[in-house]
């Protein structure tokens, strides 16, 4: 019996160590020879990319699947009963949750990317990151199998904070049902949002990933939002006019838009601009004629293309989003997220910036 544990804590490269179970006197050369066997087997599934090369999306189990029943058991009867319940229902798959269509759309994009660039690791990689106990693991894996999702990686942290693991996975976006965890992630510089399940679900595209963003405090910083909250609409207009040629500072989701843009360019490079399977939208309360100009100039200066910019000048976002049917819409204001969800849009709250301290008052309508 020969096992050779790996001295990983010192950061040594495990691949540099010899293969212990091969120690029947053979040299390392025998391993190279046996590499040919993999041809016979053939890949059943495509290999997952290295985290640093991929656009990594971490989703929690509560947004990927519907777990309300289980959540209720947890809240009413405590963790032990919750785990017992999960294990009893281990072979019952969960129903899809709010992040499900988004994840499916990511896989569609991956399939197209693999067709065009078979050797590239610039793909979406989805990791299930949950602070569930591993006892729920078998049920989660059964569910993933049932829905035929391509998720091979997961972290079940058994109650400890998942934030450290997000960094280890080079996470580009974290989606969770827990606002606290999302805020922790944002504080660590990781794009994150809380997702909500729409009561009615409008159909979303199965061939094109659509991602919609609010502008202020999502793509951009909340600096202009602050002026508006502190000094009102007129001051806001004045400020934007005066600073039209000054770039806005970046917001928490700018990096994610950038990552999407990089993948879009890969499609354009192969002549797929018109039928690109990724489409991005800016849905902002700013006005096209005035305050919107600064937003556009900023995006241009960042080298980011957004496919459609919708300046609503204060009009409600719901109807516009209903037309777009994004797989996910990011907004920093719960008022807008709730409005979108009421109309069947899959919306996610980015708890960032001044709006968290001074939420939007219902019934008011501001043209920005």
């Amino acid at each position, binding site marked *: *019996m*020969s*096992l*050779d*544990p*790996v*001295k*990983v*804590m010192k950061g040594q490269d*495990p691949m540099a*160590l*010899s*293969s*212990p*179970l*091969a120690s*029947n006197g*053979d040299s390392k050369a*025998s*391993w*190279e*020879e*046996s*590499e*040919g*066997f*993999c041809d*016979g*087997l053939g*890949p*059943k*599934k495509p*290999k*997952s990319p*290295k*985290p640093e090369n991929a656009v990594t999306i971490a989703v929690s189990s509560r947004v990927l699947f519907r777990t309300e029943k289980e959540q209720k058991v947890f809240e009413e009867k405590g*963790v*032990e009963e919750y785990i017992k319940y999960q294990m009893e229902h281990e072979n019952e798959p969960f129903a899809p949750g709010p992040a499900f269509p988004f994840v499916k759309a990511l896989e569609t994009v991956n399939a197209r990317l693999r067709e065009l660039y078979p050797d590239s690791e610039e793909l979406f990689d989805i990791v299930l990151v949950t602070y569930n*106990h*591993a*006892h729920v*693991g*078998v049920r989660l*894996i059964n569910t*993933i*199998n049932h829905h035929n999702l391509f*998720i*091979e*990686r*997961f*972290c*079940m*942290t*058994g*109650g*400890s904070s998942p934030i*450290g*693991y997000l*960094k280890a*996975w080079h996470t580009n976006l974290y989606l969770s049902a827990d606002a606290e965890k999302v805020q922790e992630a944002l504080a660590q510089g990781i794009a994150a949002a809380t997702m909500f399940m729409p009561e009615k679900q409008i159909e979303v595209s199965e061939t094109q990933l659509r991602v919609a963003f609010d502008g202020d405090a999502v793509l951009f910083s909340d600096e202009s939002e602050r002026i508006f909250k502190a000094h009102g609409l007129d001051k806001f207009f004045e400020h934007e006019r005066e600073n039209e040629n000054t770039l806005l500072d970046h917001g928490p989701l700018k990096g994610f838009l950038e990552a999407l843009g990089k993948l879009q360019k890969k499609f354009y490079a192969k002549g797929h601009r018109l039928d690109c399977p990724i489409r991005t939208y800016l849905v902002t309360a700013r006005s096209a004629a005035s305050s919107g100009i600064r937003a556009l100039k900023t995006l241009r200066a960042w080298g980011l293309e957004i496919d459609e910019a919708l300046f609503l000048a204060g009009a409600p976002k719901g109807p516009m989003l209903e037309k777009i049917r994004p797989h996910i819409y990011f907004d920093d204001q719960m008022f807008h997220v709730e409005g979108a969800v009421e109309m069947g849009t899959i919306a996610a709250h980015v708890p960032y910036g001044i709006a968290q301290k001074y939420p939007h008052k219902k019934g008011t309508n501001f043209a920005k």
Partner: protein
Amino acid sequence: MDPDVQESAETQQSGSALVTAVSCHDIFDLSACQTDSSPLAKGAAFSFINAVQAVNQRLVKHNANEMLRFEVILLGKDCEEQIKSKIFDSAKHYGLKIGKFYFCSRGEFVRTLQANNAKLFLSTDRDDVYGALKAGVPAALLCQQADQQVQEQLKVLFSGDLIGLSEDVIDGLKDFGFSAVQIQNFKAAKGCIQEFAALIGEMRKRFGCKDSPLQTILITVLGSRDVCATALKTLRGWGLDVDEAFCLAGAPRNPILTTIQPHILWDDGLHNMKGVLPLMDMSS
């Protein structure tokens, strides 16, 4: 020459105890040994003992007659006389509850482990662990803690794709160029850790989900999610329901390990082998 045995007042009934042998070199820093009466400096894995003692304390709190406890024995290889007594005194000084101290020559330490029915041998020295395993003693790496103070909870990590591969699948590896000896090694590796997993699993059940002084973790490194699911079920069958599970599917292991900061790391080493990757879609 028979090994030198020193028993302290802390000797427990061995019976169903989880006899864990640890190398002296890991608990104390033997390099900077002063001739005066000051105790030895703490070694790289000193915090491990604290964590183990915390587990024992909690076990006894639940049940004063608890038989399933960690019984730590210290092994010292090729120690000079003056070091031996320093070790004994230092253990006393730090209030370490260590049952037995064995001082033997390098060549005998495996025999010593076997004679004492050690359920697990721990060392930060890879070669030591390798030597024990070769002789059939369950052994694992004792990890150096980055932050000596913080880790109160004892973390036991099984890095084992092998656990997720069924006997048939392991047998089937011969079709891919692995020799009979290597296949035998795989099976033996899986077999040797089973008893320890069962004991740790039993011990873990003494505590609730929250606020446990003991945390058990599974990582599969190369295998697909189904390999991980099989590993979870296998461990469950052995009597261990792990708290945390990670499926890396080929992602680098170091960043995850650095976040987990385990004390005990049992590693089947399978992921070090080239050419194994495509096999990892197999599950029972």
